[in-house]
């Protein structure tokens, strides 16, 4: 969902420079005794607390993957955290600056041409947030209402499709970014805000009166989020997938989820209050690395 258009432009430029080669990232990691891990500074799944501290559900999961890799290689590994953005993540994977990244990257067929993905560990659901007083419970209540969406996201398209299928007429306002879109909802300029569930939950948790807002209605679309790694590096993919499988099987991933989404988290000690979704549970039960196109979007 965070795939800004620039990512496509930059990755295009980079793919021209990248040449076909079989990489053995695990060997490289072993030699340097450190993993260059791509992390995010402000996503729901991975963010920074400042001062070089990187936390979040996916960041912590990645640290456990590094632990498992260290056991496999039989030597201790340190982690070099490297902040990446939606724009530069694919080029940085391709040119080997980072070994792999765990943040909020959607596994899509277009990206699979340039990189590989580990097992899906989180499934993003596109939902809508409304003011609890509005009485809106479902897409069908949206006739004549105003909807906020964020420019440059795929949610806009989902909602247009739903409007056509349900033969509904609603007005659409487009916020510059997520904070703006939420401000449209908060200031009453929009009746609902359609976006990734985790972004909605984070914005509600940070709102002046979190109780005034709720996430309601059907799931508009789902997107698999997974760790991204260099293309064609089968050994590294197996190491990461095995670690994820272990974390799912022994229940530690579910506990980790609980820690980051159902309990107060730093820096503000707000509770995201976002129970694990059916789609995510399903992804854990049937580990796979399918792109979003296979989810019927």
């Amino acid at each position: 969902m965070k795939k800004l258009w620039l990512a496509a432009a930059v990755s295009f430029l980079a793919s021209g420079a990248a040449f076909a080669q079989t990489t053995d990232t695990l060997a490289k990691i072993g030699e340097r005794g450190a993993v260059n891990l791509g992390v995010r500074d402000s996503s729901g799944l991975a963010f920074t607390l400042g001062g070089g501290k990187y936390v979040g559900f996916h960041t912590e999961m990645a640290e456990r993957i590094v632990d498992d890799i260290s056991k496999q290689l039989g030597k201790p590994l340190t982690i070099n955290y490297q902040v990446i953005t939606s724009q530069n993540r694919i080029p940085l994977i391709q040119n080997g600056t980072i070994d792999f990244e765990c943040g909020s990257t959607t596994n899509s067929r277009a990206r699979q041409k340039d990189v590989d993905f580990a097992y899906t560990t989180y499934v993003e659901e596109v939902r809508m947030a409304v003011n609890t007083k509005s009485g809106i419970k479902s897409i069908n209540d949206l006739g004549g209402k105003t909807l906020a969406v964020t420019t440059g996201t795929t949610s806009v398209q989902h909602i247009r499709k739903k409007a056509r299928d349900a033969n509904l007429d609603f007005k659409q306002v487009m916020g510059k970014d997520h904070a703006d879109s939420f401000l449209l909802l908060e200031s009453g300029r929009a009746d609902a805000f359609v976006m990734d569930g985790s972004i909605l939950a984070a914005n509600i948790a940070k709102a002046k009166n979190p109780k005034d807002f709720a996430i309601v209605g059907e799931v508009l679309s789902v997107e698999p989020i997974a760790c991204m790694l260099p293309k064609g590096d089968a050994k590294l993919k197996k190491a990461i997938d095995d670690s994820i499988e272990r974390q799912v099987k022994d229940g530690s991933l579910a506990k980790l989820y609980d820690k980051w989404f159902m309990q107060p988290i730093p820096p503000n000690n707000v509770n995201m209050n976002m129970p694990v979704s059916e789609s995510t549970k399903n992804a854990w039960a049937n580990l796979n690395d399918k792109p979003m196109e296979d989810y019927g979007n």
Partner: protein
Amino acid sequence: MAMDWEVFCKDTLDGVVQSGCFGNGRDITYLDWLLSAWGWTVSVSLTGLVIALVAGSIIGVIRTLPASPWLVRFGNAWVELFRNIPLLVQIFLWYFVVPALVPPMKAFPPFILVVLALGFFTSARIAEQVRAGIQALPKGQRYAGMAMGFTTVQYYRYVLLPMAYRIIIPPLTSESMNIFKNSAVAFAVSIPELTQYALQVGEETARPIEVYIAVTILYAISAFVINRIFAFIERRAQVPGFVVAGTGAGGH
């Protein structure tokens, strides 16, 4: 890079290329959408320009009035207020802050708020130019008007302004072209104009380069048309032997 211009003929929902490139009814293509976005950009810009020219002229004239210190101070305050705050911040002030202070303004459509923001921002700049144009005239012209027995309104109307406006046509041209380019900030408050189109459609189609090229061309065309209109006015309004005499083609 291979360009794929067919992207504009695609339906915005199912991505099927439409024959003739235009959709019908509720099914629209990216080209339909592009033209609608251009329409918004042009409407925002032209309406903003009208407000800017009217308000800018009034404020500019006020600042040169000889015996009205309070009006001059008001004019100065206006200019300093609107040109010292970044345009993007002004847009947000009009959109979120002013309606919170003046509740009836909540009902104003974003279009009006954006046009006000853009118009007033530019009016401060045009007011400076009008003031400069009037003050560039020799003092003798004002006194000559007074000596003719004209009232203040009359000597501004018949003596000062006709000459001042001729002097400032070149900077006014720049300002009018700027308003087209500045109109891109309207995207920040949900006006579905070209910049928003570029961001959204670039994302949806994964062809950002084609989209940006198309949008750039439309911005350039819009600003260039205004440039030509002003160049035409400048030529027609020229007083032989005055200001830009000799260049013949306008000074820009």
